[in-house]
């Protein structure tokens, strides 16, 4: 395959550039920054395209060489392949390869025989391999003599410099393999899982053994159940027999009770040879006996005692003339009230006390009451005084005035009111003994009336008094008048002052007071007289009525200290008399009834006793006994009947035909044995349950074992995969060596033979690609080679690779100034080598210095 030309539209910083290539060696000398590396990348992109550029990808060729200035990103390359001229035209999208365009022309006509990637179709290797073989730069020519062939080859082929190589891979695999199986230590997951499986098998075997032991236990359990059933039946039978025995005992007891009842009945009947009286009759006789006793007791009790009789006799004596009627009593009561009222009035009259004024009047005038003449004289004096005084008043300076005489208070109305109030008081007092409430009401009314009358009377009297006043003037006439007046005043004073009046307030005042008092005193005296008359009248009347009352009460021998008591006593006597009278009548009737009842009871009892030949003495107690015996006999007879029926029924219901023989079974011992058996059975059941649980765990263990075996199989599978992976990797490595290393080595040796002339040394390379040279018959390490010599060795290595990796079409070779380390002499030798190589290979040589141009 030969490059003919290329046109770079826009690729990196190369724009609109055309290059033509010839056979053999094409040398291009351009300064630094020309874009030699860009050109190399362009060729790669033409033949293999470019990967898409995404945000997360590395800064790849597409991103790197996308032209900043825009324009068509791409170009074309024309080359000769299998005798035909092909042209590859590509344009690239700035990001995605899906938008790239590719057209392949063959002899100017688009064709499809070279599918993308075109480079693979032509060279038979992928892009990475192409890149690593076709381009040789200054930095890629160094060989390290310490790298193994795999590292060399693989790193070269893989394009990596790090330790991702076979050795590292196998180390990782070995590490993984050892986790599954450590050869020397007998450890690892496989070993562990195998041990676990064995342990599970042992445990399962135990569970199986337990399970296998269960049938025997089931059989024992069934045996226990059978025996327990048998013994339970025996116990049941024994219990049933015991029940029958108990029933017979019960029946025997019933029979005994029947016999006892019959005995008791016979005993009772024996006590009554003539037959036991019927209960009804006995009860009746008992009732008669009780009645007789009651009547006797009643007879002992007197309703009408001797005391009552005496009292009754006395009262009858008292009322021999007849019991006073109620009307008479009422009249007497009224009379008593009237007498009391009169006496009260009289007492009131007598008890009437003078007022202070009256007392004062009496005190003044009791010794010597002023006569009519005295009063007239005084009045005259007062008249003259008044005249004098008036004259005095009328005199220029002084006047004299005299107050009018006050009016006398209405004494008669007050007196009548007082009498009425007094009557009410007395009536109230009298009624208190008969009608309490009415008496209180009257008393209250009387008291209120008296108080009101007194209040009103005193109020009017005080109001009737007038206050006298006089004024005097002094003048000569007045003085005479005054003197006259004073003389008259003295005269007045002489009259009144003995009675205790003073002229302090004036003569007229004193005279008026005196006269007033005289009038009052006169009135007082008149009152006294009237009162005395009234009093006498009342007393007379009271005495007369009292006399009547005395006569009335005396007829009945009522001699209490006052009439009311006498009346009460009389009423009491009358009531007692009537009550005693009634009681006596009742007593007589009761006695008659009592006698009759006693006769009847006695008769009935006699008849009963005769009929049943029962002694009369102590009949009441006897009757109780008969009654008790009768009831007992009836009860016993009834009970006997019931007992017989019960016994017969019991026997029939319990089917008591044959009495069990022998002794009763020892149920306690039988139950004890049964309980022991039950306990043993329960223990066995518990064991069986535990065994079943343990045996059931065997199922879970089986599952665990299955899982363990699955895991073991899995571990073994993985182990097998890992081992095989390692084996295949080693196989691949061996084949790689076989496929590439030997021919590469042979090619290298053939190229290095050329280099012997160039290098002046005999270069050898061993199977591990360690480069050595012979010097003085001794192989030396390539480290002794100079840098330039080593770069030539690297070139030979690349050439050897190209020889072997490109099956048919050899590619061109692009050398990007790889010989910067060579001196002039060696450079010349390399030139000769390249010239030799260029005979069979198209070489494009770039350099930035003319001295290194080929």
């Amino acid at each position, binding site marked *: 395959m030969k490059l003919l030309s290329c046109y770079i539209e826009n690729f990196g910083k190369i724009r609109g550039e055309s290059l033509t290539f010839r056979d053999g060696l094409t040398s291009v000398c351009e300064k630094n920054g020309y874009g030699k590396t860009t050109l190399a990348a362009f060729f790669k992109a033409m033949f293999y395209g470019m990967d898409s550029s995404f945000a997360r990808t590395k800064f790849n060729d597409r991103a790197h060489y996308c032209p900043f200035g825009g324009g068509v990103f791409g170009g074309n390359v024309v080359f000769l392949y299998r005798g035909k001229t092909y042209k590859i035209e590509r344009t690239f999208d700035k990001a995605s390869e899906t938008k790239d365009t590719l057209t392949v022309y063959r002899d100017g006509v688009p064709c499809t025989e070279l599918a993308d990637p075109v480079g693979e179709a032509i060279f038979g290797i992928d892009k990475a391999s192409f890149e690593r073989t076709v381009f040789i730069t200054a930095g890629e020519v160094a060989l390290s003599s310490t790298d193994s062939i795999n590292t060399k080859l693989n790193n070269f082929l893989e394009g990596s410099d790090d330790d991702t190589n076979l050795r590292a891979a196998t180390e990782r695999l070995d590490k993984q393999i050892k986790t599954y199986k450590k050869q020397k230590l007998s450890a690892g997951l496989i070993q562990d899982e195998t041990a676990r499986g064995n342990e599970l098998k042992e445990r399962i075997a135990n569970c199986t053994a337990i399970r296998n032991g269960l049938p025997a236990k089931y059989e024992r359990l069934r045996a226990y159940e059978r025996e327990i059933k048998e013994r339970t039946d025996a116990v049941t039978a024994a219990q049933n027999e015991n029940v029958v025995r108990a029933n017979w005992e019960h029946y025997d007891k019933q029979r005994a009770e029947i016999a006892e009842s019959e005995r008791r009945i016979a005993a009772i009947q024996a006590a009554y040879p003539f037959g036991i009286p019927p209960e009804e009759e006995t009860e009746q006789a008992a009732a008669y006996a009780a009645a007789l006793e009651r009547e006797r007791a009643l007879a002992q009790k007197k309703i009408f005692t001797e005391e009552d009789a005496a009292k009754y006799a006395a009262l009858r004596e008292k009322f021999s003339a007849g019991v006073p009627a109620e009307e008479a009593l009422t009249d007497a009561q009224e009379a008593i009230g009237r007498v009391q009222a009169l006496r009260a009035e009289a007492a009131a009259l007598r008890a009437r006390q003078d007022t202070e004024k009256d007392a004062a009047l009496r005190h003044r005038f009791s010794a010597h009451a002023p006569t009519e003449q005295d009063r007239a004289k005084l009045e005259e004096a007062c008249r003259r005084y008044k005249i004098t005084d008036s004259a005095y008043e009328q005199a220029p300076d002084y006047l004299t005035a005299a107050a009018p005489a006050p009016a006398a208070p209405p004494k008669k109305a007050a007196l009548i009111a007082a009498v009425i109030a007094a009557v009410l008081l007395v009536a109230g007092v009298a009624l208190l003994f008969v009608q309490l409430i009415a008496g209180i009401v009257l008393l209250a009314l009387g008291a209120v009336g008296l108080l009101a009358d007194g209040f009103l009377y005193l109020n009017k009297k005080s109001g009737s008094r007038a206050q006298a006043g006089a004024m005097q003037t002094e003048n000569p006439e007045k003085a005479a008048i005054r003197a006259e007046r004073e003389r008259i005043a003295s005269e007045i004073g002489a009259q009144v002052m003995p009675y205790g009046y003073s002229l302090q307030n004036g003569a007229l005042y004193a005279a008026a007071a005196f006269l007033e008092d005289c009038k009052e005193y006169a009135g007082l005296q008149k009152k006294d007289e009237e009162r005395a008359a009234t009093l006498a009248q009342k007393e007379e009347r009271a005495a007369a009525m009292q006399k009547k009352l005395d006569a009335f009460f005396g007829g009945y021998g009522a001699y209490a200290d006052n009439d009311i008591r006498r009346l009460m006593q009389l009423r009491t006597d009358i009531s007692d008399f009537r009550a005693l009278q009634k009681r006596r009548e009742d007593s007589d009737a009761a006695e008659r009834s009592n006698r009759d009842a006693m006769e009847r009871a006695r008769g009935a009892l006699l008849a009963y006793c005769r009929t049943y030949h029962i002694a009369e003495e102590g009949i009441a107690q006897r009757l109780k006994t008969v009654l008790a015996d009768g009831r007992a006999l009836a009860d016993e007879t009834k009970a006997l009947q019931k007992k017989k029926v019960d016994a017969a029924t019991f026997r029939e219901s319990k089917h008591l035909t044959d009495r069990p023989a022998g002794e009763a079974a020892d149920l306690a011992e039988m139950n004890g044995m049964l309980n022991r058996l039950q306990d043993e059975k329960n223990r066995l059941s518990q064991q069986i349950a535990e065994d079943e649980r343990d045996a059931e765990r065997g199922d*879970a263990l089986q599952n665990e074992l299955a899982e363990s075996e699955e895991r073991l199989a899995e571990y073994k599978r993985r182990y097998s995969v890992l081992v095989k992976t390692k084996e295949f990797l080693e196989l691949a490595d061996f084949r790689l060596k076989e496929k590439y290393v030997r021919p590469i080595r042979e090619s290298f040796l053939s190229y290095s033979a050329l280099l012997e002339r160039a290098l002046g040394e005999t270069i050898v390379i061993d199977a591990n690609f360690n480069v050595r040279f012979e010097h003085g018959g001794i192989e030396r390490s390539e480290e002794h080679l100079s840098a330039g010599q080593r770069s030539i060795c690297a070139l030979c290595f690349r050439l050897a690779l190209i020889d072997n990796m490109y099956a048919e079409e050899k590619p061109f070779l692009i050398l990007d100034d790889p010989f910067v380390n060579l001196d002039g002499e060696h450079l010349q030798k390399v030139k000769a080598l390249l010239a030799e190589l260029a005979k069979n290979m198209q070489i494009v040589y770039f350099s930035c210095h003319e001295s290194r141009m080929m």
Partner: protein
Amino acid sequence: MKLIHAADIHLGSKMDSRFPAEIAAKRKEELRNTFLRMADYAAANGVAAVLLAGDVFDSDMPFKKDKDFFYSVVKNHPAVDFLYLRGNHDCGGGYEGEPLPNLKTFANTWTFYTYGKVVIGGIETDGENASSLYSTLALDKDACNIVLLHGQIADNTGKDKVCLKKLRGRNIDYLALGHVHKPQAGRLDERGEYAYCGCLEGRGFDEPGPHGFMLLEIGDTLTRTFVPFAEREIVETDADITGKADAYAAGVAVRREVAFDRRNLYRVNLVGEVAFDTESMAADVQKYLSNECFYISVKDRTRRALDIAAYEKDVSLKGEFVRAVYAAGDCTEEEKQQILRCGLRALRGEEFDL
């Protein structure tokens, strides 16, 4: 008249080892409860008899507690007869307690029970009667004849086998079979049919699908209806997660494809093609979907897409390795996938999860 045909209860059976311990324990409990529910159903719906065609227990030596449970159920449903034919797994399930009037058993000779015009017969097969039982069967053609047997349908006779052709033409209206855990039915002859009622509850992922019993209604004719009665159904299904790069996306895809029922147990096989170096998503998908149902198990059955052609021209140890593995004749496809994944990750210096 109504009858229930049930079989293969397998009381006391251990559950699938792939169930977690607590799920297995719960399923065991549900198995017992379903049997009890069936008895309640029979009593509530006027079923005259429950025909148990074998394997009521899971072992020749069933636990006492399992036997006690079974007989307790029988005892507590006195209105329903239980016709109990022992199978190959419950030879030791015989009853030794007090007589139960509603428990009818069979023996190694033909035993018949009559319910009006319906005659129900059965025989417990063993080595001594496996071949002769067919010739000793005699049924009245005028009766409605139901026969109970436990075994696998076969063309020949033998222990635990049921030779259908030898039962044809023997006036059987319904052949009630036990032994096969999946319900199925077919024609026996012109007159009658046979049916396996299946087991009452699936015990593992090898027993998917609906489970229950057959309800027989006998009037002028005999009609059979399968009654799904299991507490839960076991479902196994594939879910294509082609192209899904992570467990979440795979979980979403599974949810879309599978109509989950919270009561059921699921085995989901992840199928399809995913990127070559995708980590196994089974464990994570199982976690994501654990709340969708009673229990779920997810298995990774996906293919890893590896474009071998891409490696044909790869001149490297990697390419050589890929070509060497693919060319290996002593490895299965799955093994090759795993070796490739492991090796390529190792070469890249990445962790590799097998």
